[in-house]
């Protein structure tokens, strides 16, 4: 019955961070946002999702950690279904506690940071390891300080989010996502709310993560970043994946008309300046 899960479990160490999305559909009311999306992300791979707004990129990202329930299709991480358990030929919905446990393997970074404003930087990072993963406080704090140093904010440990710049806030948010030692980190337009001059510092942190072997799925409008860092670029439009491939191919020789149209709109104006 659950034989498909077995090989994945056996090879868990080797396949840390494998995401399989198959034929996912999702509607909000009358609007069908995802219309049969299938995508496999290999362990350690960096996938950048591009597409016009309203194309379903963010929704797709949010289905991976079950912030959005899918209407049809399924998603699995390292062979384990997200949000459901297959038993007796049926999919049983997981209880909230089990869903929360699954989410601790999947970090998420939001467009608007969503740091907890009443907690200091270090408290923001410690919260989940201590209360979701039940790690000892001292150990979680030590790890939090390490992470803050890694994102270049070791001097901002006890500072509240509103006292930080946007770029610094987003770096704290990245540290917060990493504190759970996730197999996968999802980035939902991590630099869209930032001033242009602050984008670089956040992208640098993400770039260093890409080299660390964690699976990254990034929704972004930063074409330069996509070209430099992505192993694979996925182009979405109207709830479907139109085209995917290596960055050189997508940017250099897009096959699909819609991809061409989108890229010409996004890239050329920037260079014509």
């Amino acid at each position, binding site marked *: 019955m659950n034989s498909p899960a077995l090989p994945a479990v056996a090879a868990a160490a080797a396949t840390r961070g494998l995401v399989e999305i198959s034929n996912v559909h999702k509607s909000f009311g009358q609007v069908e946002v995802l219309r049969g999306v299938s995508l496999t992300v290999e362990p350690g791979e960096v996938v950048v999702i591009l597409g016009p707004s309203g194309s379903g990129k963010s929704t797709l990202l949010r289905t991976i950690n079950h912030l959005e329930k899918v209407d049809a299709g399924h998603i699995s991480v390292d062979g384990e279904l997200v949000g459901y358990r297959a038993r007796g030929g049926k999919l049983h919905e997981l209880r909230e506690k089990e869903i*929360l*446990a699954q989410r601790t393997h*999947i970090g*998420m970074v*939001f467009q608007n940071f969503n740091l*907890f404003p009443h907690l200091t930087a270090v408290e923001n990072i410690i919260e989940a390891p201590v209360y979701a993963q039940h790690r000892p406080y001292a150990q979680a704090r030590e790890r939090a300080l390490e992470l803050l140093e890694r994102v270049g904010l070791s001097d901002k440990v006890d500072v509240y989010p509103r006292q930080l710049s946007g770029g610094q806030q987003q770096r704290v948010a990245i540290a917060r996502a990493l504190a759970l030692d996730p197999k996968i980190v999802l980035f939902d337009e991590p630099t869209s709310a930032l001033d242009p001059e602050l984008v670089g510092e956040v992208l640098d942190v993400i770039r260093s993560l890409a080299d660390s072997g964690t699976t990254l799925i990034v929704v972004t409008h930063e074409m330069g970043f996509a070209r430099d860092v992505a192993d694979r670029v996925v182009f979405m439009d109207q709830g479907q994946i139109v085209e995917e491939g290596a960055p050189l191919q997508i940017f250099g020789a897009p096959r699909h008309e819609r991809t061409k149209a989108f890229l010409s709109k996004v890239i050329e104006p920037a260079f014509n300046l």
Partner: protein
Amino acid sequence: MSAAAPRSETRPETIAPDAALPPAPAPDPDAAGSADTPPSGGAGPRTAHDYSGYPVVAARHPWRWAGTALVALFVAAVLWSLLTNPRWEWDVVAQWFTAESVLRGLGETLKLTAIAGTLGFILGFILALMRLSSSPLLVSVSWTFSWIFRSAPLLVQLLLWYNLGYLYEKVSLGIPFTDVRFFEVQTTTLISQFAAAILGLTLNQAAYSSEIIRGGILAVDQGQLEAAAALGIPAWRRSTRIVLPQAMRSILPTAFNEIIGLVKGTSIVYVLAYSELFYTVQVIYNRTQQVLPLLLVATVWYVVITSVLSVFQYYIERHYSKGAVRTLPPTPLQRVRRFFSTHAKTSEVAR
């Protein structure tokens, strides 16, 4: 800035190499056309006018001062009449202010406020969570509770609880629809004046505070819940550590309004002949006929309680505004201290 001799070498703001005009005279806002703008004619390069040597003259607000004087005059007049009109009978107020019966009544008022306030807000919190839950049953139970207890006048509620014995002679615990009873009490012995007062005030308070707490929770950004859920933080921790502290910022001002309202609202239990502050004062003036001075006794005590609560409110709100503002403003106490320390310094300098 003194007027005007050709001192352009020492006044950088008038450096304008090609200026045919003499250096600008001292700033005089009344003289039309002589504002301190650099001469803009000529073909040479324009140099920015340098205002660095100018002192700043604060804007004047004559109407603000007129208003202040008017209000001060009015306050003085009111105070004067309060102190000099013998019919206020301040000596009688002073005589009864700390009388034992009045203090006992005050104690009862504080007790009712504390118990009904605490229980009311705990029940209100539970009702608010029920109302925000995804269970239609819990939502409608919570809604109905608020609907009923906000609709019925508090006076009616109190009298109803007190007269519960008339409606139901006995209160018993047993298996419904059978004759099995585990225990049974006369309602009248169970519902004392105190119990009726607490029941009425608590349930009424819960109905109002549930809406206040719900409003506070709704005001918290949805992204906060989402982030907490994405991090796998358990539901209870999410409500108590992430949502509630942030909701507190909008809950507190209204909640203190409610508590302060409750302090005086407890006076309504005089209908149960419950001897809290207001009832005590009434009993006394019915005997002595000194109505106004005794009402003043009660009023001054209510003012004292409200003042103390306002101080609590200030510091509690300050506690929950951590992280919401970049730097907290100084407390009044800190301001006074700073005023005196800087004042001391300047007077030292003067010496």
